[in-house]
């Protein structure tokens, strides 16, 4: 009996403690530092935050480390990143960009793919959440969806231009491995998407700065038509003219009389900017164009709160193509002696010459100064990046006119754009003739030897004069690769330490990233990669 008592006592001890521990079976994870989907009921005021990531990824994509800017500029004839005494060989990545010897492992186009699809997938996600009622929007639902689809079309345009044959994904809920589309299908998809959303897009440019609106969509359409021949084999010059005419007639945008103001650190809401990718040194970081281009010593010139890295610079042949009285030569490039902000001492003198991509001095080559560096700048600039601006619309129309035999009308548009560039030096030079635009380029194409001499490649470039105008106007605006391809220069010409690639025609689109080929067996690599 005694034993039984003890067992009872012991069991009671066990049971009472077990009861005390009942609460200790709750295994729900308490979430503190994340927002649980089930606890968040988004309302109207959350809409900006919900759609923001669609744009947010464009910031890193455009001016971030090895982003879109580098993809468009380093593969072309205006900007090069040569090895410096402090590095900048980086396993040959810049040499590959310059010589078009990139592989599916090349990071820059991979980065572009990832950022573009991040916008695409984010747009898909938000669209499906709105459609499923997870996000309740009482008013303006159609407009929000149209905007999202518009940005998605923009992201697909980047993929169309750079990778060509990519999967089209529009449904977030479908996670099956997507099939690849060819470039023409993608082209048609984007055109159709834009046409569909246009009626629902806002025409108020002021309240939609930095966002997809009616005018941005129209400019995007013009841009795609401008390159239609590259994308599909069929040119669409007439459509370029029609769309540009509508934008011009809209009267919403105009040329800024001061060229440099378009790129100023306070360029927000500039009259010329149609689609900006806004940056802010605090809230919207990521514009690091100055960090990559300036020598570390330039930090003293601007009293910078960061040490620049000292990498890319202008290709000397391009600098040589400028008219010396063209204001854009000085608005775009930092050159000559640079003085300490406080002492006035010369800290570095940037010279035009760049001996080779393999080895340079720290002061070789003019630096990108288009995006003006504000005093005490940090590692991240305030300047918004003008992805589309009004001058671009004028020049697109001019090119379409020029190519459809309307040289004089084209010349007057180009002259209009040139006016401010010569306003302070020699206004007469602003006017340009159709013959010049149709004629050969002033750019001395050819391979540059170590001693600076050029193995001249004097073959005539059709409409080379017009290509020059694009170069001067849009230098360091991530336009050049696309323009060179359209004018055939990308595939055929030598410049600096670049010679035409043996499979040059295949290099006009980038390879599908190796990681994506590995992850999605439905993808077929682009030719010759």
């Amino acid at each position, binding site marked *: 009996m005694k034993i039984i008592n003890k067992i009872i006592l012991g069991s009671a001890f066990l049971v009472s403690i077990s009861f005390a521990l009942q609460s200790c079976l709750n295994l729900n994870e308490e979430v*503190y530092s994340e927002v649980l989907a089930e606890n968040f009921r988004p309302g109207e005021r959350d809409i900006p935050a919900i759609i923001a*990531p669609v744009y947010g990824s464009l910031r890193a994509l455009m001016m971030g480390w090895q982003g879109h800017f580098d993809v468009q500029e380093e593969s072309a004839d205006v900007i090069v990143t040569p090895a410096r005494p402090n590095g900048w060989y980086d396993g040959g990545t810049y040499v590959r960009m310059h010589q078009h010897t990139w592989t599916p492992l090349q990071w820059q186009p991979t980065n572009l793919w990832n950022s573009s699809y991040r916008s695409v997938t984010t747009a898909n996600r938000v669209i499906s959440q709105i459609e499923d009622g997870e996000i309740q929007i009482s008013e303006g639902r159609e407009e929000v969806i149209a905007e999202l689809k518009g940005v998605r079309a923009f992201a697909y345009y980047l993929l169309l231009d750079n990778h060509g044959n990519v999967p089209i994904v529009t449904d977030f809920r479908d996670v099956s491995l997507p099939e690849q589309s060819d470039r023409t299908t993608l082209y048609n998809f984007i055109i159709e998407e834009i046409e569909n959303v246009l009626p629902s897009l806002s025409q108020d440019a002021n309240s939609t700065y*930095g966002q997809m609106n009616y005018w941005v969509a129209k400019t995007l359409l013009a841009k795609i038509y401008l390159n239609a021949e590259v994308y599909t084999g069929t040119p669409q010059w007439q459509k370029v003219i029609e769309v540009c005419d509508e934008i011009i007639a809209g009267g919403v945008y105009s040329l800024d009389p001061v060229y440099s103001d378009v790129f100023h650190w306070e360029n927000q809401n500039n009259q010329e900017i149609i689609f900006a990718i806004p940056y802010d040194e605090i809230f919207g970081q990521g514009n690091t164009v100055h960090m990559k281009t300036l020598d570390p010593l330039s930090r003293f010139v601007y009293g*910078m709160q960061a040490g620049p890295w000292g990498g890319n610079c202008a290709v000397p042949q391009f600098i040589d193509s400028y008219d010396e009285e063209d204001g854009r030569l000085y608005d775009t490039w930092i050159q000559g002696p640079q003085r300490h902000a406080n002492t006035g001492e010369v800290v570095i003198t940037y010279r035009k010459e760049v001996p080779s991509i393999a080895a340079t001095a720290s002061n070789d080559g003019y630096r990108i100064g288009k995006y003006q560096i504000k005093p005490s700048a940090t590692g991240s600039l305030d300047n918004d990046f003008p992805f589309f601006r009004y001058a671009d619309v004028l020049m697109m129309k001019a090119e379409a006119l020029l190519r459809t035999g309307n040289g004089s009308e084209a010349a007057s548009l180009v002259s209009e754009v040139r006016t401010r560039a010569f306003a302070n030096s020699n206004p007469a030079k602003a006017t340009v003739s159709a013959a010049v635009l149709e004629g050969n380029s002033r750019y001395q194409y050819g391979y540059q030897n170590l001693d600076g001499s050029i193995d001249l490649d004097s073959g005539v470039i059709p409409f080379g004069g017009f290509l020059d105008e694009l170069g001067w106007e849009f230098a360091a605006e991530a336009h050049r690769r696309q323009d060179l391809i359209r004018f055939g220069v990308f595939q055929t010409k030598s410049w600096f330490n670049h010679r035409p690639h043996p499979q040059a025609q295949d290099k006009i689109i980038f390879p599908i990233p190796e990681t994506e080929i590995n992850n999605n067996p439905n993808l077929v690599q682009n030719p010759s990669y």
Partner: protein
Amino acid sequence: MENFTKLKSIVAIGLMLTFHFGSSQTYASIMLDDSRSSDGVVEARAVSSMDKTISGTVYSTEDGLTMPGVSVVLKGTTRGTATDIDGSFTLEVPDNGGTLVFSFVGFETQEVAVANQSVFEIKLKPDITSMNEVVVVGYGTMRKGDVTSSIGGVKEEDFVKGAVRDAAQLIQGKVAGFRVTTPSGDPAAGTEINLRGLNSINGTNQPLILIDGIPGTMNTVAPEDIESIDVLKDGSAAAIYGTRATGGVVLITTRKNSEGRNTVNYNNYMSVQTIQRRPQLLTGDDYRRLIAEEGIAYTDYGGNTDWIGEMLQTPISHNHNLTFFGGNSTTNFTGSINYRDWDGIFKRTGQERLTVRADLNHSMFGDKLRANVQVINRVIKAARGGADGYAFRQAMIRNPTDRVRDEQGNWQERDGYFYENPISRIYEYSSESRNNEMRMSGSLSYNPIDDLDLKLLVSNVQNNNIFGGATTFSHTDTWLNNRNSSANRSTNAYNENLVELTGNYSKSIGKNYFTVLGGYSWQDAVYEAFEASNWNFPTDLYTWNNLGAGAALANGQAAMGSTKNKWQLAGFFGRFTYNFDDKYLLMASVRREGSSRFGANYQWGTFPAASVGWRISNEPFLKGVRNVDEIKVRAGYGVTGTIAGNPYLSQISYNFDRGQGAYVGGNWVQGFIPTRNFNPDLRWERKLEYNVGVDFSFFQDRISGAIDFYRRNVNDLLYNFPVPVPPYLTGNIMLNAGTMRNEGMEFLLNFTPIKKGDFVWNSNFTYSTNRNKLVNLSNEQFDVSREFFNAGGTGEPIQDYTHRVEVGGPIGQFFVWKSVGVNEDGLWLIENQEGEVIPITDAVPEDRQFYGNGIPKHIIGFNNSFTYKRFDLEVNMRGAFGHDILNFQRMFYENPKNIAYNMLNTAYDPVYGQRLNSDLAYVSHYIESGDYLKLDNVTFGYSFPGRGIMQNARIYASGLNLFVLTKYQGIDPEGVSILGFAPGNDERDKYPTTRTFTLGLNISF
């Protein structure tokens, strides 16, 4: 079989469940074949022609206390009895006497001739054969002879001596298959541990470390405060710990006052350290010679600075440990104070540590209720400068003709990419960190009836950290980034609770002995952290102590962050052991465990285990064989798990993120983004392990040891799977997607080659080998599959991955361009995929191949201790064979191409007959054999005889990491991380390993 309470206090083994030992006579190590172990037998027998009655008392030589329950048998008969609670016995014996056999578990059996004697005073000696040693197993202890799984244990007297960092280093090289290395020479760094290969990709590979049953780390208690360390290696042993046990379980038992002794023990040592091996760089004179003779365009600033020498110091460290034992058998106390102040070989590095422990035991109601309270408080402080791996890199690459300071006494800075004065970094940055850990635990054990023990264990651990760091106006950051003093402060707090309830019942019926364990365990933990930074201070005198004074906060540039998470783990467990006649052993256990880290459908899992053993040596056919003490074969199977390392992984949740924000509607807003690609079906990894082994002991234990073979399959590997973008949002999703296998062999041999008079030589040899294979990497639900993943990175400017783990292959393989020569242009010649030799400039990624593996195939430990009279000498060796190391130091610094940086003095030496003129590149030339044999620890000691109140004293001198036999050209072939998926990368930015010399003193009063 009653009244064992007193006996239990004799065989006291801490407060864990002690029933295994005391309760059965079947445990007597050697029983006569015809003996009956039950007490009733003799009394029941009809008394025949008994001529005389003898009586006596049995004592233990260990503590002099009486021993109840000792079997007393008249040899050659079935006649016998057992001692009562006072250790007394009476027995009728024939007139002509005979021989009495006294036997008891854990003690040597004694035979005494009766002759004419009628009163006996018997003293039983503890049986010291290895099979009777007590080993700590999950939730209890077991006699080693009864263990049916793979467990390694090391006792205090066999620990590694000298300046050890933590508990793991105490058993370095002593437990087969349990690899301990010290890849960093930083005095604040710990050890790296690996047991039976890599078993998880994203979960932890670390073992569960329990200090007296409560989870902790290898430095929770001071090494001097540890009595024994046991390692549960295989799944059948570890499965009782469920999801925390895949990396094995390490059970640390602290020193306890078991016998009511009253002593004070003081332990002190001092040590000095030197760098293990110094990299030989070009000197200033070398620069001038190369400029003059070869026209190499170095800049000569005229000086001759030994930058590494400027960075190093010869640190003196000291350690003090004071331990008190006091009380009696019902109430006793153990207290210890441990203080250590260690400095590192880099200037301004070091760490101070104070650990105070108090352990109080009390027993009541005739030992039916026992209570324990333990408090461990540890304070770790480190006040340091800016000497780190990056500063070491700067010392390696800095121009040796340059000077440390200019004429004005300012730091000499130069422009350059990642090129900073290392000495200025050391002196112009300061930090202070303080870690406080308070552990409180209490337990109550209650025996309502004999053989049943109920126990409640509760504990609370609070770990708090606070850190502050700041640069001065003279720091490079001011020169480079115009940031005038930059300071940050961070703090975090971790609070963990444990409640465990166990019931243990044991019983012997005839030759059957069984134990049943049942229990419940609850753990929860909360982690909270906060950090803030600021810069542009009006003065650098505030350091981190007036963070608001910086301008960056006002400008909106300063950063701030905080986070919090919590996890819970609940488990029910049970274990059954059965022993028949000391020959056949069975153990079966199961744990049902639930974790909050997984989605609702996958929170609970079951972890069963079973093992069997056969003590062949106790079979009749081996029974009488001389020189065979023990042969036991055993086999086991067990399932353990691994939990995802991070919180919230199975949640569908979002975050506001500034980086994904944008300018929308005329305002800057933060982006509302999903935190991850969602996978609410996440569950834990399951490891299924088979283990077979043999334990043996021969020649009166002169030779003993164990051999184990195992295979472990880890299923449902947690892997951050690369998924295509689109359709996924981001490029990775955490999935259960794969199977990994490890199989191997472990061998342990303890032997005593010489035992002659005053001279004893004891040896211990361990060997282990492991083979690893990634069996597959796929997930059907998400329809993803992968053939390989890449791991490791060279860092810039090479910017390449170093390893590839391929399905069907092992972890640790280097994946590299195989260099086979150098051409006349000084370019590497690479063997391409077709086997042709091409210059590196033509090589493509597809030309890479597998070349060597960073994980050793064979690991040995060879430990010897010699004692002669009062002298003792220990010589420990360790080795690892069959592996390769990527020597980053040579890859970056043994190449003359980039003259902006200094290099090794071998950089201009011809490679394949040519001077290199190739960019820095990752090629197989830099992958070297990492095989080594290390004379790791030599300790020489002398013990003084006790005198007056001094019971004993010992002085010793010790050297750690003394001598290495290796072809490896880097600093230390063992100073390389063995964990993760890029093992064998001897990184460029490092805190080099050291050689340590120690002088120590040990006194007891």
